[in-house]
């Protein structure tokens, strides 16, 4: 512990140097702007600025790129809350209750809770990163394809089990999402599936077109033609701050989201995407008022926002400790380090302590900078709600289009978003939830690959999933969730008293 503190001291001596502070600040500002603009996500932001870091020292480069990464995660909540446009998969769950809070005049509170939740999660997870990186990284390495398959399956089951409505409907939506994820080239055989000669579909359906369509465009379709249009909100200064009750309701979700996000974030692969989904589902299940979820529950913003920021730090664990990127963004950052002649891995902490600890300390500083940047901007951002909806929704449509187009420069993606918008509108009218579709579409290629790799490893033996301790435990947990739901459904069906009219029970007498 004393050694860790000593090393952290070394890190702060580097992170507080004027040049490092400047690059952290530039990274945070660019990241926040990139996050606020729909479509220009952290990956695009980092990729655009990567060449600009070639002339910097390795420490300055990684500090600036990390600033863009978590700055974008902070900023990503803004359009989700104000316009219901998720810039990326991690912001999807924030759309639901964040936007509902905004329509109730609590946009300032939602943005402030998101910023503070992100700050707490970011800071706490950096402590965890500092203390637990080496042991957690070796645990994460024990995740092979069977464990990965079990984890992803569990993620889908947790989301379906903990969603507010019927588990069957949620599972059906998740399977629909998985089927959408089947479109494109099969990763193991190279076969084109369901692409009908459209070359762009070879890469599959992107997450951004699906999420923007199901949330952003569907929301406009459902709202713009209402007989009573959404009222123009004029937030007052006192409305910008969360109330005491909102603070109280946020504390535990922020804590749970932080732990959950970090643990999921360390797993190599793109499992960190499910952190905000799982956090939302857990909060809804644990809430005393689950019916408030979807209607503007503050826990529905605090939990997922904390989880996705915590997962950001968690994602650095395998990258720094093992040299294994846990997703596309850490992979780009890894490439940036390698350009500077640094090879992340088990020896990085010993061989280049200034870089590792300077990076860790700069994350503390960066989180503080982001809080200082984001809280005052809440008052500026909420002014979007002053725009009449008749002018706001055409702008939302335009931002949805530009956001989707910007990802790949493909008009096919815009078409996909429009189709998803129409689908989301119809599903909404029929009372189906759309979030499981997004999760299913994200996980489909990974879950299929993990299943087939596992079977290749075991020569076709399905027992591999239960014979390995981690995957066996995860699957047992998933089976328990399904059984629990089945039992509670049967108990409801057997409860004959529920079917007796009130007057027969004598309650009207």
């Amino acid at each position, binding site marked *: 512990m004393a050694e860790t503190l000593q090393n952290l001291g070394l890190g702060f001596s580097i992170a507080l140097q004027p040049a490092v502070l400047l690059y952290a600040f530039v990274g945070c500002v660019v990241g926040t702007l990139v996050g606020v603009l729909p479509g220009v996500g952290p990956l695009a932001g980092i990729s655009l600025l990567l060449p600009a870091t070639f002339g910097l020292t390795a420490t300055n480069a990684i500090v600036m790129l990390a600033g863009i990464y978590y700055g974008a995660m902070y900023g990503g909540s803004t359009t989700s809350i104000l316009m219901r446009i998720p810039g990326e998969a991690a912001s999807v769950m924030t759309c639901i209750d964040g936007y509902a809070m905004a329509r109730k005049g609590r946009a300032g509170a939602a943005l402030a809770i998101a910023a503070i939740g992100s700050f707490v999660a970011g800071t706490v997870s950096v402590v965890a990163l500092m203390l637990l990186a080496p042991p957690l990284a070796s645990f994460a390495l024990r995740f092979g394809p069977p464990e990965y398959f079990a984890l992803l399956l569990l993620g889908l089951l947790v989301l379906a089990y903990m969603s507010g409505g019927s588990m069957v409907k949620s599972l059906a939506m998740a399977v629909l999402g998985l089927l959408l994820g089947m479109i494109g080239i099969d990763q193991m055989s190279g076969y084109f599936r369901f692409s009908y000669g459209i070359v762009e579909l070879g890469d599959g359906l992107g997450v951004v077109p699906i999420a923007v369509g199901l949330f952003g465009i569907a929301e406009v379709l459902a709202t713009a033609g209402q007989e009573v249009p959404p009222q123009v909100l004029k937030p007052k200064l006192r409305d910008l701050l969360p109330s005491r009750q909102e603070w109280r309701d946020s504390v535990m979700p922020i804590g749970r989201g932080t732990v959950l996000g970090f643990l999921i974030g360390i797993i190599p692969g793109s499992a960190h995407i499910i952190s905000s989904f799982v956090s939302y589902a857990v909060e809804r299940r644990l809430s005393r008022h689950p019916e408030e979820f979807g209607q503007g529950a503050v826990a529905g913003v605090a939990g997922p926002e904390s989880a996705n920021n915590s997962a950001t730090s968690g994602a650095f664990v395998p990258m720094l400790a093992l040299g294994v990127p846990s997703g596309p963004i850490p992979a780009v950052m890894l490439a940036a380090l390698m350009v500077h002649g640094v090879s992340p891995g088990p020896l990085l902490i010993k061989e280049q302590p200034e870089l590792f600890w300077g990076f860790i300390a700069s994350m503390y500083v960066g989180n503080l900078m982001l809080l200082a940047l984001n809280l005052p901007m809440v008052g500026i951002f909420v002014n979007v709600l002053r725009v009449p909806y008749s002018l706001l929704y055409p702008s939302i449509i335009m931002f949805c289009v530009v956001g989707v187009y910007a990802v790949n420069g493909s008009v096919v993606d815009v078409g996909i978003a429009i189709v998803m918008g129409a689908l989301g509108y119809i599903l909404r009218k029929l009372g189906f939830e759309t979030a499981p579709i997004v999760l299913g579409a994200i996980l489909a290629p990974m879950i299929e690959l993990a299943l087939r790799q596992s079977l290749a490893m075991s*020569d076709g033996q399905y027992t591999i999933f239960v014979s390995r301790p981690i995957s066996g435990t995860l699957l047992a947990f998933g089976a328990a969730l399904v059984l629990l739901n089945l039992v509670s459904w049967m108990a409801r069906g057997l409860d004959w008293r529920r079917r007796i009219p009130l007057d027969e029970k004598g309650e009207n007498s």
Partner: protein
Amino acid sequence: MWTTDRIGGSALCLLAVLVMWESRSLPLGSWRNPGPGYFPVLLAVILLVLGGLVWAMGGGAALIAAVGWGEARQAVIILAVCVFICLGLERLGYRLTMLAALLFLVWLVERRSFVTAAAFAFALAFGTYYLFDTLLRVPLPRGPFNV
């Protein structure tokens, strides 16, 4: 009785059957060594079962007629504008397509004055182009005469 869940369940079953039909050209592989068609067919079977369950348990859901569809007309118009944007983006360019789409929505659909609508559409179409294409170097399509 056509309830929302019955319609949703039926649609899911139909989709599942369609996926199975479309998967017939993909090698299925075997139980032990799945091919590219295995997972889609497996998912389609699960969707068929779940769609059937949604249908079977959906008798007590809201009647489809009881769901308000008052905004559907405007939703169709907005969807048509979206399709126009999609088709026009690479033919007319970002600025002209957005200008036309925004002008149509604000002036004709929302019945704002022409001057307000034109000023709003022009500022937004050209302003966002400048922000994304010029400042952020996110290439957006250009139309005739490089507009």
